């Protein structure tokens, strides 16, 4: 019975994957963004969104504790609503910049003939993880407020930082010295 289920699952998986090909026109095109835009996304993440100061300011309960102890109920509600909005905006921005990095990576890595299989797998996993935790964090903040899931914030920040690190190496690799040879086989080295 188990083998029946397994084989049928593989068949169903194949049928499901075919659904991605059914649209009439070519879809899912991922043209790489220009390097300058990607560098900007990376800067926004590394020096802005993921900086400990900003993450701490939004998600650490210090401000919240102060407001709770010093202000009235109306102010507290207002503070929480504002902080939730701010946290959601932060998550949204991180998600957007990560998607931008992923788009750039996929758009350029697909042409790179010396791409490393395991590195790509790891990176795919990292991208998937960070995007998933972003979604989970967004749901948690939306449902239970900005201080509901501090571990999830840590996980998101760590995963995003990891992706940034790899993307930074990739950008360094692509930059000026190798720029002219990118696109042909002569581009030496590899991104680890």
């Amino acid at each position, binding site marked *: 019975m188990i083998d029946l289920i397994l084989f049928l699952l593989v068949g169903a998986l194949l049928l499901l994957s075919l659904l991605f090909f059914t649209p009439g026109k070519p879809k899912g095109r991922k043209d790489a963004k*220009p390097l300058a835009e990607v560098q900007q996304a990376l800067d926004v993440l590394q020096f802005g969104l993921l900086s400990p100061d900003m993450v701490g300011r939004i998600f650490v309960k210090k401000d919240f504790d102060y407001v709770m102890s010093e202000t009235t109920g109306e102010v507290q509600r207002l503070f929480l609503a504002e902080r939730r909005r701010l946290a959601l905006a932060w998550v949204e921005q991180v998600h957007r910049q990560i998607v931008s990095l992923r788009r750039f990576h996929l758009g350029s890595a697909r*042409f790179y003939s010396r791409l490393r*299989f395991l590195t790509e797998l790891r990176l795919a996993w990292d991208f998937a993880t960070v995007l998933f935790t972003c979604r989970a964090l967004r749901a948690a903040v939306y449902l239970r407020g900005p201080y509901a899931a501090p571990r999830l914030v840590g996980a998101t920040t760590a995963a995003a930082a990891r992706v940034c690190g790899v993307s930074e190496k990739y950008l360094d690799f692509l930059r000026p010295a190798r720029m002219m040879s990118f696109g042909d086989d002569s581009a030496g080295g590899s991104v680890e």
Partner: protein
Amino acid sequence: MIHMALSTLGRLFTRSKSVDMPWPSLVMWCVGMVLEFLLLLRGFRGKTLARYPFFYAYIACALADDVSGYMQYWFKGWASYVKWFWLGEFLALIVGCGIILEVFRCVLSPYRGAERFARIAGFATFVVISTFALIYPHVMPASSHRGTMFELERDLRTVQAIFLVGLFGVIRYYGIPIGKNMRGMILGYGLNVAALLVGLTIRSYAGVPLPGTWNVIMQQASYGAAVLIWTTSLWSYHPNPVPDSSVRLEGDYEAFAARTRSTIGALRSHLARVAQP
């Protein structure tokens, strides 16, 4: 393959026992042959035959197999056809790999990174197939010749299905655009393999059905649908979209040049200030 639907336990059924094909199966078989012939004809006239040689080799094989199988069935009866069946089935399985090669050649070859990724994943799948082929006879005792063949084909189709899912995943993940011809080729073959796999699995589990039962009809219909998809999508030549990496690099070059110019400008003004007494 449409004639896949005709596979039953040959030793149990003979023409003298009146196990003939039901008319819907015969109709679908004939329609399939006509479509295969039409596909080849269009490939020849529309000059797509030279562009997709592996795919058309598969179609030519399928047509030859269908015609010869049909003649076997018609003139010599069911039992004779069943002997013929497995040869054609495994030939189709092997030649069908040409379609995967065609996808590699036409879709992935301009994207060397994605091609490399898919090639390594394919190699891993090949290792799995080889390991499986070596271990299988020792793990599963061959209870009957027919059962082993069924299960072996099911297993090989499973590996093929896994490989196709991986290939589709790579194409999807790297956002590789696909033209109408290749899209149709992939859709048709994927549909056919999925239907074969489901049909073979059900047959292996529930026993071998007579021709005309629902899973046999489903397989016939799926192959008919696949040939129909191929005929419509390969009616004329539609090349794959050309990758536009050069356009992006031009944009990058402009951005870098602008950045360098602004840096040099800033340096010049700084130097000018320093130089002033």
